[in-house]
């Protein structure tokens, strides 16, 4: 594949293979060279990240899939290694390229660095694979493959009830995947029957032809939706998440929140809307309801948490609810907002988990009741935490705002009453995060809390790129919107065209983010 001398360098296969090669290299290094594992892992992850940025630069603002590679893999089943990116997956791949170096830099394993870094790199390669896959089976392969490294990361380097959390995570996701696999098989076979052509699992072909009968698509969409809803996670399938996030090591939590959860929402856009638009429109009320439920439930439960990390974990449930709300508003704004939430939630929650990890390293507790007045002993950390927390709350000017705003805007246009309920989630988010901040960082600093060390320069350096992005993407999201808009518009038009009784809502309102974008366009 790398030898392809065609028009361009096959950047996507390189981004998948590079981490795998790095993992293999770490596997081959002797244990005695323990000092090499971290540099090799970091170098590989950064190189992959650089490739993702290179891809971002070379991306054209059009709807079609770019950087495509298509290699037959299992020819008798018509499965091919078809990879490509469009405006929706582009930023998730860049996010992967960003968050893995941060996660590797941001924390060190307590023991056994060799398998730790090897698994992290495997996870990275597989994550890129999920976002770039254009063949249903290849998507599934990577989707399942991410489970294995994550399972070991939680189980071997986690805290407390790590084995329970790891097993629960694995089985939950696998149960969903089992349904999805049958759904994928059925999609391929029914598509073949419908067209009379050869068997194929190519997403573009299946989405284009739309030959599967309506009852069948409802079942298949249901199977996909359950699998992806577990991954998102949507209430009531979320119970694996608090355990997995809380017990995972810091890097594992960062990756879980920043990348793994996005596999679910990304899958809903890519396989829910794109492949089965009609079924998505029909089952939309169910998903919207679950999304709104997730927003409010996640927020309320987060408020009640005593453990800081668990609080952040539940806040993810709420944020991902906004994502799903945006997607199933079926408006351009809603889906754009949803993609923005995905990326920005990845950045802010990743940063939050890093900060909680730093607190835990110093204080060996995450209980809010044990922490108090940290801003006196660690003012820089408090400042970072404030910024990240406000971004997570959705303060205008920081990166949490545009995505949530556009999601809600889309919901008001496409699904008004769900939008009305969802707005309460914004208020609750302010409540639980500000309250948690107040309890941990304000108040009197006593005992251990008074002696806590502030962020080291190295740790600040790890956070710096995230903080910069939090501000930059909050003030100026237009570059992202410009790149994703053609793809999102094409997707909404596709749904409009291929579903009964649904017309995409015309754009009537212009939010500040779009106003900025308009200016960017108009010049």
């Amino acid at each position, binding site marked *: 594949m790398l030898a392809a001398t065609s028009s361009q360098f096959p950047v996507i296969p390189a981004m998948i293979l590079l981490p795998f090669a790095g993992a293999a290299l770490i596997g081959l290094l002797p244990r005695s060279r323990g000092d090499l594992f971290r540099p090799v892992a970091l170098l590989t992850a950064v190189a992959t990240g650089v490739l993702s940025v290179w891809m971002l630069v070379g991306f054209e603002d059009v709807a079609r899939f770019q950087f495509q590679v298509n290699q037959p893999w299992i020819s008798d089943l018509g499965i091919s290694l078809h990879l490509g990116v469009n405006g929706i997956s582009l930023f998730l791949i860049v996010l992967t390229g960003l968050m893995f170096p941060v996660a590797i830099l941001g924390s060190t394993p307590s023991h056994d660095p060799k398998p730790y870094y090897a698994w992290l790199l495997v996870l990275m390669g597989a994550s890129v694979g999920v976002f770039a896959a254009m063949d249903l089976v290849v998507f599934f392969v990577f989707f399942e493959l991410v489970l294995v490294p994550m399972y070991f990361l939680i189980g071997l380097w986690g805290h407390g009830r790590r084995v329970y959390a790891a097993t629960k995570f694995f089985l939950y996701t696998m149960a969903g995947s089992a349904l999805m*696999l*049958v759904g994928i098989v059925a999609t391929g076979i029914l598509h073949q029957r419908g067209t009379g052509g050869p068997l194929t699992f190519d997403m573009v072909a299946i989405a284009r032809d739309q030959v599967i009968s309506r009852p069948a698509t409802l079942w298949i969409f249901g199977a996909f939706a359950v699998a992806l809803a577990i991954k998102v996670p949507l209430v009531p399938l979320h119970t694996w998440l608090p355990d997995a996030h809380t017990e995972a090591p810091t890097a594992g939590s960062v990756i879980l929140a920043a990348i793994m959860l996005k596999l679910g929402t990304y899958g809903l856009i890519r396989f829910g809307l794109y492949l089965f638009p009609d079924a998505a429109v029909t089952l939309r009320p169910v998903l919207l309801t679950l999304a709104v439920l997730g927003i409010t439930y996640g927020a309320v439960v987060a408020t009640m948490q005593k453990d800081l990390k668990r609080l952040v974990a539940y806040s993810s449930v709420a944020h991902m609810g906004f994502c799903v709300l945006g997607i199933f508003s079926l408006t351009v704004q809603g889906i754009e907002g949803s993609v923005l939430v995905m990326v920005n939630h990845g950045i802010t929650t990743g940063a939050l988990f890093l900060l909680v990890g730093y607190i835990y390293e110093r204080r060996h507790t995450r209980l809010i009741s044990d922490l108090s007045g940290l801003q006196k002993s660690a003012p820089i950390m408090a400042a970072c935490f404030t910024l990240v927390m406000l971004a997570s709350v959705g303060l205008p000017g920081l990166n949490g705002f545009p995505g949530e705003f556009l999601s809600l805007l889309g919901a008001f246009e496409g699904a008004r009453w769900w939008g009305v309920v969802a707005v309460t989630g914004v208020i609750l988010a302010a409540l639980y995060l500000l309250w948690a901040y107040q309890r941990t960082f304000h108040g009197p600093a006593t005992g251990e809390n008074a002696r806590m060390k502030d962020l080291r320069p190295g740790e600040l350096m790890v956070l710096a790129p995230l903080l910069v992005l939090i501000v930059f993407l909050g003030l100026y999201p237009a570059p992202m919107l410009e790149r994703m808009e053609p793809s999102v518009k094409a997707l909404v038009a596709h749904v409009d065209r291929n579903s009964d009784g649904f017309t995409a809502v015309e754009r009537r309102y212009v939010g500040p983010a779009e106003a900025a974008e308009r200016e960017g366009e108009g010049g």
Partner: protein
Amino acid sequence: MTGFVAVLAATEDIPTPDVDWSAIAPNLILMLGGILLLTVVSVVRGRLPGWFHAVWTISVATAAIVAVVPLWQRVQDSGPESVLAGALVLDGFSLVVTATICVSVILAALLLEAYLRRERLGGPEWYVLMLLSASGGVTMATANDLVVVFIGLEILSVAVYVLAAMHRRRVSSQEAGLKYFVLGAFSSAFLLYGIALTYGATGSTNLSRIQAFLADTVITQNALLLGGLAFMLVGFGFKVAVVPFHNWKPDVYQGSPTPVTAFMATAVTAAAFAALLRVYVTTFGPTYRTEWQPLVAALTVLTLVVGAFLAISQTNVKRMLAYSSINHAGFVLLGVLAASAAGDAATLFYLVAYTFMAAGSFAVVAVVGRRGDGHHDLSDYQGLSRSRPGLALVFTILLLSQAGVPLTAGFLAKFYVLAAAVESGYTWLAVLAMLTAVVSAFMYLRIVVTMYFAEPEGEPRRPRIPAAAGLAMGLCVVGVLVIGIVPGPLSDVANDAVSQLVAVGR
């Protein structure tokens, strides 16, 4: 009277079939290899090095695989043929199963070498019996006549009954042998009775004649034939351990010497499924599919569910793998149930993939079992990742493959079977099968958890890994990964092999 004269006249010139020796070469090599080994060893007793038997067995099995290759070419060029006056059939399907059985002989022989040395059990009998059993398996896979199926089954089984009881010092081994024998004899009786009823209904035991007869004739009173089908299903079901005929399996797998268990899980399963598929799908498929499919569907449901759920409640790893093999049998049965070309290919693919997964897993079990072959409790795997990281990794890969994680053989095996089932309209069964796979995954994870996450009580033991067992494990892991990542060659072979199966007989 005239009939009697005719018989007399006929006896003067008994038509002896032309024997195409080259067509049955793999089977002959296995059988003669076994007999010759017994002869050589009894002549030059005591002067042979310890490794001789294993090397001999592996060479014989390799030679048999080599003999398969020109036959495969021949079948690909000129189509399937029947051999020995229609008693055997030479087609792609039988050849692939033959090669699979030979591979499992090689893997089991490697395990046996290390095992016998450790247990201080000598003797060529183990290898002789294994070769003869394999020859029986090949006979089953190539049989074109119900009587030949039965003969093959008996050769296969009798040798394995003895092998199961071969560990002289372990009572559980003898118990396993006896249990297997008694229940096996019962099931043979069922099979034979089924064959007799089928003969009564169709007037022949030859599979191609039965197929032709059923194609031409509509039987108005088909109770006899249905009875025959049901009884034969019991017979085959016992051999492949389909629920509710599975009760022997955990006990026998647990009690038998572990290399023998590996052989049973691979060669015996492959041979029995090959015969089952040939009889039900090829012979009765075109005409009587609607009669046997509901029956097999019910058995598949039971096999999948019972295999998965009983596996998770076990604490003995050998028993866990025994129950999980029942779950796997359910998946293979799903391929048989599809009763289509895709289903046949999927069955074949699954059998080959399972050979590597099962042989490799039991290889690990044999090594961890240590001297006495008794340390099979889950707690014996505690801390294995510390004391033997390589062994733990190998076992993890094999278990994940059994669970169906992508990039391993197990995933694609399941994928092919599911595709075949969905194509034949058994989507609900495919969903059920995948859900039971999740239940099984919990069991595999329990083993992984024990190896990696559990703190060992006291000093973790370092099981010795003999070179031969290490080689077997290496082969299995490579096989599992290669099939999982580059499945093209195997799936091509499986597809080619299956298209041949339809045309049986001259």
